[in-house]
């Protein structure tokens, strides 16, 4: 008995010591808090997956920028920046969509800066009013199917969301995330008046959308469900199409949408109150330039907003993006009301 007690004690002590020792290694030089002007540039982003973070860190280092990437999901990242507004830790934020950047702007969490490449991007893709954030990459949120498997697709997305296709299309119910929020915004925005009040018709559309859909399965990719024959249609940001076609051997086609589809435009901006504002601005000038955006587009099959970078982008992607209509959505209005809309959907309309 006694032996087992001392053993347990020793194990606890061992764990503690190991912890302290590891902490020593892990935090070597780690005290660079939010305040000081030296040290690496802290870059906040939700767009560091698929090796993009590593690529950027490397490219930046070659060009004299020492950066450290903090990568989080879009909603979480926005919450974090807003929560930190009194004592910002990050210097630059990029990758969030227009809606999230509108939130940051409304909370005074970003500060306006006009980059050197400002005339190479269409003004209305960013923030034409205040110039608080600037566009980098475009993605269309499209409804896709596998043309190898589906021979008679609906003529328009609106036909899909009816009982005729009940259970055949995937709906993403994780409404805290960016893409599902944009889908909802795309459905509701046409029915909203200037106070953000949505007509009953709009709510009926949302109701039909969720009631007839098959909820996404946690941990199962949309294309895996295509393969299993579980569903035939689903929503995907255009950036994921090429990789999936290569992986699953599918031939992705897009269901037409007469009202246009929501676009995600990934933006970049300087975090307000940073001690490294000048470096942050230099980084933005470099990262948004036609040359770097072109290289990024080439590497990751992205659709650059910068017109000078288009030539380097994958022609397949350019063609795909050109083939869909951009929905006319007032993002400032959506930003203001999306929280309430999502809440109502979660409380009343989700299956």
């Amino acid at each position, binding site marked *: 008995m006694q032996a087992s007690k001392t053993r347990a*004690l020793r194990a606890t002590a061992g*764990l503690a010591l190991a912890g302290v020792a590891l902490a020593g290694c892990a935090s070597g030089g780690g005290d660079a808090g939010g305040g000081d002007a030296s040290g690496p540039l802290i870059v906040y982003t939700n767009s560091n997956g698929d090796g993009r973070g590593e690529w950027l860190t490397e490219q930046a280092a070659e060009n004299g920028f020492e950066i450290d*990437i903090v990568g989080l999901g879009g909603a979480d990242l926005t919450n974090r920046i807003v*929560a930190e507004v009194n004592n910002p830790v990050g210097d630059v934020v990029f990758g969030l969509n227009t809606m999230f950047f509108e939130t940051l702007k409304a909370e005074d969490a970003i500060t306006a800066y006009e980059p050197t490449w400002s005339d190479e991007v269409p003004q209305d893709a960013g923030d034409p009013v205040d110039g608080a954030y600037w566009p980098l990459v475009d993605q269309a949120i499209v409804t896709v199917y596998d043309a190898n498997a589906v021979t008679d697709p609906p003529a328009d997305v609106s036909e899909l969301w009816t009982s005729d296709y009940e259970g055949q299309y995937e709906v993403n119910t994780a409404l*805290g995330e960016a893409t599902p929020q944009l889908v909802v915004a795309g459905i509701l925005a046409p029915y909203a008046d200037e106070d953000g009040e949505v007509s009953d018709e709009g709510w009926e559309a949302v109701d039909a959308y969720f009631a007839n859909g098959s909820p996404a399965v946690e941990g199962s990719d949309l294309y*895996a469900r295509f393969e299993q024959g579980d569903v035939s249609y689903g929503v995907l940001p255009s950036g994921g199409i090429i990789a999936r076609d290569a992986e*699953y051997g599918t031939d992705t086609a897009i269901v037409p949408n007469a009202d246009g589809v929501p676009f995600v435009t990934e933006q970049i901006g300087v975090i307000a109150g940073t001690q490294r504002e000048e470096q942050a601005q230099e980084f933005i000038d470099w990262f948004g330039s036609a040359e770097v955006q072109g290289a990024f587009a080439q590497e990751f099959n992205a659709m650059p907003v910068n017109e000078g970078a288009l030539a380097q982008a994958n022609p397949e992607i350019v063609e795909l993006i050109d083939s869909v209509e951009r929905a006319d959505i007032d993002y400032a209005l959506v930003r203001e009301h999306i929280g309430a809309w999502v809440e109502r959907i979660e409380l009343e309309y989700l299956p």
Partner: protein
Amino acid sequence: MSAAQSATEPRTPADAGMTPQQPVRRPRGATARMLRSPLGIGVVIGTLWFSATFLVMPNVTLLQATFAPDGELSLSAVERLLSSERALRSLGNSVALAATLAVTVNVVGIFIVLVTGWFKMRARRVLWLGYATTFIYGGIVLATGYAFIYGRYGFVTNAVANVWPEMDRDWFSGFMAVVLVMTFATTTNHMLFLSSALAKIDHQSIEAARLMGASNWTILRRIVLPTLRPMIFAVTVLVFLTGLGALTAPLVLGGQDFQTVAPMILSFSRTATSRDIAALLAILLGLATIVLLAILNRVERGGTYFAVAKVASPLEPQAFRTRWGSIVMHVLAWALWAVYVFPVLCAVLFSFADARAVQGGSIGLDDLTIEHWATVLTQPDALSPFLVSVAYSAIASVVVVLGLVLVSRALTTWRGRLSSVIEYVLHIPWILPTILIALGLVMTFDRPQWLVGGQVLQGTIVILGIAYVIVKIPFTLRLLKAAFAAVPDEFEDAARILGAGQLTTIRRVVIPIIAPTMAAVTALNFTSLVDDYDAAVFLYHPLAEPLGIAIRRATEGDANVQAMSITFVYTVLLMLVQGFVLWLVYGRGLRRRRG
């Protein structure tokens, strides 16, 4: 995420503080005596400072910002919530799940404890290892693992469908599936705490019963189970809390008919405008817990407990009396073992398999690959998130255990009004979900606070560690109090008579007795913190990225089709780390016992 419960004073051995008490007269002047002892004063001041700074202030700040953003209290959340059928149904489902689990987990958990600690089973050690897999395998990957095995297109479903094509492919979903998965996944507390309570049963009383002709069954029913009752009650409460806070299993396996409230809370806490609903739902869950506890207390009231012998002869495994009894128990035990071990083996297999093959539901030899392992291990700084998380979790779990040893000792020694208040306050982290606690910390410590010496904590590496300590306080306190209650007063009296001071008595007499519980709680805290995401997301320092964040990063991304396999690689790596911790605490003991 779970909820608070009433703070009652433990009087029975091995009481986790949740056993029902007949109304006791509180000893008079306990608070005064507490404040006369230097140790008492130290503990009171330390605890009050910590509670005020890290438990009360941040959460008040948050609730204020949530319910009264413009300085005016708004209760529109109540209205919005009550009009939602979906929210109320989820709330009902959570309570139903908790109540069901309280029964099923006890049945399975007690069975496990008996076959590993009571009966003379063949290869008992192997059985124990199999059941102990719950210690190293949990969360979202456990749920998806089960889905990949028994779900719509899982292996087992596919295999059965080959033989019997008209089967219902959705057989493993909804309430039944959630209950099964969570039952098999949450027997850890039984394994650790009920087993150690069983080991303390006096062998002599069992011998005596045997000599008087009692059968195995009678001994179990009349001696063993009544003696274990306080600990069974304690772990039942923990199971309850797990059931109420159930997040991933309903999400993955619940289907449309069985969704619980925790995912809703999580999603609402992420939107600024809906945060009041999240807080309200969390508080409702807290109330549900208190009501259910009150009912359990009433049911439990009036039980008399068998005394655990102070000079116990070690318990010896009991041989089976009849051949068929032995056969039945062996078959059941090994069948259960297979249920426990199969998903773990599958997780290892999945980490080596192509994601498409796994999701498609059939893995051939060609689908095996080490590509995912290469991806994880060769990325720059692959190791650093592991080191960061191990360091944070180890430090936080040791700090919280050591700190609370003194606190729970003070709380059990001096049971006055002040200690009840302190105990209540220390349960605050059980009411609010981690993500809200983290937000409260950011919003409070983003400016100099005189309570922490005018420091700005937000943006430093310290704040995440503080958050980890905070979220582990209630669980640790509960179990440490239970352990203290089991220390016989005579030992301390003897030490005091021999001239030992308070601290010496604790160090030389009390701590050695409660060391096994301390070690077990430390290990459990460690494993639950090491892959944390909810606290880290708001608090982690850019230069010290923890594991939970790294896993998310590796598995997100629009073009990442291998995400699932990568998750399984991390799962297996986590199993190795957690298995190592388990070995530190229990492993050498096993070997010694074997030898």
